[in-house]
């Protein structure tokens, strides 16, 4: 069971990859939920359940579990958009499929050692904090196909809506993280790069949602600000954890 539980992950990786390749070579029109992508998500969900059972804690700890759960969240939000027919065209679908295939490979290449259930992780606040944060990252991620497509002016309100969902979930995740930290670490706030950048991401998206009210920003400038928001999100999630010493470090 200790290694067999990885099988659904590798099957999911195969399906994410197959979905992307089918789209590149001609099946681009199929919605995500009616393709290999949906199967990949199903297998990935099974993997998460098995990993949870094996490790005894929510599979959010360490580089592999973290990338896997970010990928699962992004796939989930992509599927929601697909079901609601809100993915911006074939290119947008191709982008989301390729993005998830890429991250499934990143996950596969990450060390998969299991971290035991240490006492400080034995709380619902940990699970709520991480789950909300990753689904919020996913909402911020799915703005990318809109930002990369032509005619941002017509799509801006959709980007705004997705960013607001991401911001709302991230806010709730920060609150849950603060409560967890207060009960576990001795304070709701500690001065590490992860906490600082989480605050940066939160304030940035909060202020970004005001950008449209500023008359002097053209749609192209606002597109750039949203793209920077995605960059800040990725730095908060992966950059800080991989490059800097922090409370959430993968190093």
């Amino acid at each position, binding site marked *: 069971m200790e290694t067999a539980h990885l099988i659904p992950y590798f099957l999911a990786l195969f399906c994410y990859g197959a979905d992307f390749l089918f789209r590149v070579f001609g099946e681009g029109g199929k919605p995500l939920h009616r393709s290999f992508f949906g199967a990949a998500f199903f297998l990935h969900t099974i993997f998460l359940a098995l990993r949870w059972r094996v490790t005894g804690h929510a599979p959010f700890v360490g580089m592999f579990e973290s990338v896997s759960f970010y990928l699962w969240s992004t796939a989930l939000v992509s599927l929601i958009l697909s079901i609601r027919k809100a993915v911006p065209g074939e290119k947008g679908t191709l982008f989301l499929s390729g993005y998830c295939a890429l991250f499934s490979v990143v996950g596969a290449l990450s060390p998969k050692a299991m971290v*035991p259930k240490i006492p400080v992780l034995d709380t619902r606040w940990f699970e709520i904090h991480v789950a909300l944060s990753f689904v919020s990252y996913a909402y911020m991620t799915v703005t990318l196909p809109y930002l990369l497509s032509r005619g941002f002016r017509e799509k801006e309100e959709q980007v705004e809506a997705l960013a607001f969902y991401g911001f709302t979930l991230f806010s*709730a995740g920060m609150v849950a993280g603060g409560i967890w930290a207060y009960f576990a670490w*001795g304070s709701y706030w500690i001065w590490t790069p992860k906490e600082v950048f989480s605050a940066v991401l939160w304030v940035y998206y909060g*202020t970004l949602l005001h950008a449209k009210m500023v008359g002097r920003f053209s749609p192209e400038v606002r597109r750039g600000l949203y793209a920077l928001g995605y960059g800040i999100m990725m730095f908060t999630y992966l950059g800080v954890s991989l490059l800097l010493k922090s409370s959430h470090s993968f190093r």
Partner: protein
Amino acid sequence: MRRFWEFITSPLLCVACGIGFFLSGLFLSLFLDGAPGYFEDIESSLLLTWLRGKVAAGFSLPLIFFLLFLLVVAVFTLNLVLCTGDHLTGLVRRRSGLRRFIPHIMHVAVVLVVAGHAVSASSGARVKGVGVLEGRGVRLFAPAWTLYLEDVDIEVGKWGYPADMVAHVKIQAEGVTVARGSTRPNEPFFVDGYVLYLKNAGVLPSGARYALFDLTRDPGAPVVLIGALLFTLGNLLYLLFPARNFRKNERRGK
């Protein structure tokens, strides 16, 4: 003067603060990582005490970026307070609907979080890394308590890591027991405004068991919590009462 007022209450300043927060936060994070020695004692004392000590020791690049970060927070908070102050009277006078008040509920919430944190940073307490042997006591000075570790249980789980630990403690002031209870990870012991955390426990080579504690006091924590919950409420209200075209646009695909 009017133009200055318009600027200081404007969304332009709000967005500028977002970008300023990003830039100062980026440099601060790099210094937190690259100059760990400079920040090593930041958690073991109150922020205000730490800042006073660093300013007295002379200005340095990490300190300048730290102060810049705090300055952006201050300007951002001022912007929120003045924006809400500027709009609120008009909204009340016009008897606007709830939706128009929601952004200001969120502004007030952020101000509460900052204010609560400022209170904790200036008038809280931090006593870090108090080691106590089982059956022994340690005298603390602020507050003037003696912390006794009556016993500590450590449960070893899968792969040899501690799965759980619990410390039973007694707190005395001038020989009189003021509190008795237990603490474990994620379940601190609340005593008279202070919070006692069990940070670690183990067995010394001599066979004696010990526990390591932190004692903190964050008087602003309830205000921070109220602010955080109010902000979450504001966010939810915004989703429940969206702008007329919000959901329509979110659904409109392609």
